[in-house]
């Protein structure tokens, strides 16, 4: 980290919002998928987004690095407005790591190459340095011995841990998780969640769409509940689970917790 980066990080440590949604609206054709989203996330905050399928939670998360375009309102990430300016988008994407439901590792590259691709081509890191960093992160997700294999040779849980390491290799300021455990077998969910908990403890800003309520309870600073394109309720996990304000939240929680 350079000195200026360090200074910026310290400056932001206080109350400064790193992600801001102001009156964000989005439509898929006629379908109003995000309705007046107003929300801000502070640096270092861990946000868990939950809600029924089709509620817009993935879409909202994907607006943060502009994998989806919003049509009305403004989204500020790290003080930069996400609009059609390609330079801004590419700059923000360098600083925002993303983990997908289906891992989306590149099957034609080895695990190591998957991790070094973006540092080498986007950050222009020398190859050797990028590989050292990649091995460091692979060790952190406890998978360094698989570095020379291809994604197709790994289990789902291993692939998702690689995907997290791949995101971290860009040394992002924000990590987005879009249902990271939904495509995994039950016994593999834990190994992925363990890595995410560890990451949260280190103070990474995280936005995580998930149905893992246990994870939300232990890790989240705030839990956001969405339904029909709106943020219904956002609260600290303790309040959210024990004392939900809206009947819609209560119904959702009763369905998801009592099965």
């Amino acid at each position, binding site marked *: 980290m350079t000195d200026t980066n360090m200074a910026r990080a310290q400056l932001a440590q206080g109350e400064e919002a790193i992600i801001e949604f102001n009156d964000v609206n989005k439509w898929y054709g006629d379908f109003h998928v995000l309705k007046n989203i107003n929300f801000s996330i502070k640096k270092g905050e861990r946000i868990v987004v939950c809600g029924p399928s089709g509620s817009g939670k993935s879409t909202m998360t994907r607006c943060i690095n502009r994998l989806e375009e919003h049509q009305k309102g403004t989204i500020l990430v790290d003080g930069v407005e996400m609009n059609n300016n390609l330079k801004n988008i*590419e700059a923000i994407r360098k600083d925002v790591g993303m983990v997908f439901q289906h891992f989306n590792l590149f099957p034609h590259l080895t695990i190591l190459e998957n991790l070094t691709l973006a540092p080498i081509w986007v950050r222009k890191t020398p190859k050797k340095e990028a590989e050292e960093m990649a091995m460091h992160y692979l060790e952190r997700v406890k998978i360094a011995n698989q570095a020379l294999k291809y994604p197709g040779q790994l289990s789902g849980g291993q692939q998702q841990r690689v995907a997290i390491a791949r995101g971290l290799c860009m040394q992002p300021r924000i990590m987005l998780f879009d249902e990271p455990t939904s495509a995994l077998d039950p016994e593999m969910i834990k190994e992925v969640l363990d890595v995410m908990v560890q990451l949260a403890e280190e103070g990474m800003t995280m936005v995580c769409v998930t149905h893992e309520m246990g994870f939300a309870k232990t890790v989240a600073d705030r839990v956001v509940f969405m339904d029909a394109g709106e943020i219904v309720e956002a609260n600290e996990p303790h309040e959210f689970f024990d004392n939900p304000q809206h009947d819609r939240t209560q119904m959702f929680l009763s369905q998801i917790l009592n099965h």
Partner: protein
Amino acid sequence: MAIIFKPSPSLPPPVTSVGAVAWVRQNLFSSPLNIFLTLFSIYILYLLLPPVIEWALINATWEGSSKAACTAGGACWAFIGVYFDQFMYGLYPEAETWRINLAVILLVVMVGAFAIKTINKLYLSIAIIVAYPIVAYFLFAGGVFGLEVVETSLWGGLFLTVLLGVIGIVASFPLGIVLALGRRSEMPIAKSVCVVFIETIRAVPLITILFMASVMIPLFLPEGLNFNKLLRVLIGITLFSAAYMAEVVRGGLQAIPKGQYEAADAMGLTYWQSMILVILPQALKLVIPGIVNSFIALFKDTTLVYIVGMFDFLGRIQAANHDSNWLGTTVEGYAFAALIYWVICFGMSRYSMALERKLETGHKRN
């Protein structure tokens, strides 16, 4: 005391399920229908093979200076022997054919050098793609270092066929990729240009394009601005093939899951970076069979240049068939043509299969 579990030892499989006998049983005599088909095929081979071998080998005549020498009743391969040089080089001056041989040897050596581990593959690729064509051009055309000038109208035979095929393939491949990307682009102008180009070229027969290239274009060009006919034909073949290639590549691009595009975008890769590093390597691997299919078709389609007065391999053979000394050798000529085309196309096909195996990463387990 806990009971210790010991796995039972593995037994060898029964003799009837391994080895040659088992293979024959399973594949040739597994059912009454299969037995019947096997015996029927053997019978057909028994009927066909002996006469063919007799004609092509036992009763064949290998030497002689005219059809009259072929009296054994079999194939008259002497015809191929006498005309061999013309089939290979067309009307290229006999004293200069070493230049073609040298260029071919040079290419084989350079491509073979990829097998050497210590060599820098990037420099080698650049040498083959950039330096080699220049060297080869001057070797073929002459005019430098005291090499005699050989007009392109004298180029012919298998030399011309391979030249058209190789340049057509090498040039149409990148052009096809760019067209495919253009067709999937979100930029309306680039997209429409590519769609119109692809749909127009695909809707026109190659012969029409060759006629356009050889006859029509010179009429439209101002006096004195006429360029080489071989070059015009080459451009025609390349554009034609590129349109087909574009659609093959587009098929591959569409087969790549959306998540791959998103993952590349989310990392901050630019459009060209994500295409070249992430999408195309996967898409092209998927459509290797289709690409090779197009290449083989292109290679054989080059025979159509015969129609615009260029004598490629097949053209030379047909012309030689009209030699009054060798009337009645059509079958030998076409058999030879078929054999050479088969060897080259089969080689391409095998190469593509080897390439597919080499690039396979999905199910490989250690």
